[in-house]
């Protein structure tokens, strides 16, 4: 029910619709809720509607954080008395 997936917007279509691609599967969805989306954006699709966009810089930062925090705090702990 809470199912939502990130898919790449590959083609804008009339009446606030767009064609998105996920791993080679294509589907037409509504982008009425994310009118600023453009071709190339990754949108999050829920029940046939895009509800938001993925910020690629933030995505990178999050991934970096996963690995980084492990090392950063290891060093931090060495410093503490």
């Amino acid at each position: 029910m809470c199912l939502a997936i990130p898919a790449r917007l590959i083609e804008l279509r009339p009446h606030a619709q767009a064609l998105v691609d996920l791993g080679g599967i294509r589907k037409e969805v509504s982008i009425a809720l994310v009118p600023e989306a453009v071709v190339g954006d990754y949108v999050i699709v829920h029940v046939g509607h895009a509800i938001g966009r993925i910020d690629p810089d933030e995505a990178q930062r999050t991934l970096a954080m996963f690995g980084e925090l492990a090392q950063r705090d290891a060093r931090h702990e060495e410093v503490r008395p």
Partner: protein
Amino acid sequence: MKYIDEFRDGAIARKIAARLRAEARPDRQYSFMEFCGGHTHAISRYGISGLLPDNVRMVHGPGCPVCVLPIGRTDLAIQLALERGAIVCTYGDTMRVPASGGLSLTRAKARGGDIRMVYSSADALEIARREPGREVVFFAIGFETTTPPTALTIRMAAQEGLANFSVLCCHVLTPAAITHILASPEVRRFAAVPIDGFVGPAHVSILIGSAPYEQFAQGYRKPVVIAGFEPLDVMQAVLMLVRQVNEDRHEVENEFTRAVNRHGNAHAQALVSEVFELRSSFEWRGLGEVPQSALRIRPAFARFDAERRFGLAYRAVADNKACECGAILRGVKKPTDCRIFGSVCTPENPVGSCMVSSEGACAAHYSYGRFKDIGITAEATA
């Protein structure tokens, strides 16, 4: 698949798990409530509980809109199909929810009700366009993620002047449910069930933003970390919660920065306000009446409100006496604490809502976690 696979990396999971083991203080328990059906499902499907330290426990909150749908609402949908001859369109998850009289939407369909599973509310609208001689009702359930698509559909129906389309609105609100849990007697009695923090829902937060959670963090002094949908997001959020607890902080942090900001999707929010208004109170299965927790259709769109259009009267129906869904939804009991879990109540024969949806705590535990209850490690023999 981009933005999916990277967030399911097992090697990184092990690193985060190691961090958790290092940082969770051995002298205390940590209980975090996740409040999103998608999170419940991710935790089960990826076996995340097994990767957390023993003293860190995940409690499943009422984040599954199907699970909190009271019997009386499903009864109304069934009534519309069987007694009023309407075509009732619904998401797949609602089909098996047990209602009154041994019925469910699936069983009502077998009795001749014209009940159709749709993937989106737009599909229901399309059915209404194609069958102008029939009444078409969309059974709208869901939290804030699903509400804007329904609003869009109602507005489109109004623009097109459709005369045979209406919505049975059962949309509910996340912050109200969290408040209700925090304010409930068992939880306030700190010794009983301490919930140390919340994993904030992923997609609801895309819509409402992180701001609405600030009241819980400050008012109830509980940390909230909004987490993305993938298993690495959930684990990272748990780590961030452990840190907040250790450092005696109670802030709203956002792990899902790639999709969530403080204010949410303003465009979608405006659309929702245009079409819906707050109900003063709404019954949640297992939680009873919860104030300011649900939406109804505004008078301006009255002709698309199935309740008004068909003059429906809501009748509350009590749950089966043995059903512990209420306590489980409040995080006070575990599925295995329920007398009928796994015996009378199974996914094939669900008694309560927690077993019906795959996001429900009981269904998730039954399908994915049951083997741990038994304490047998199945090993291959030579």
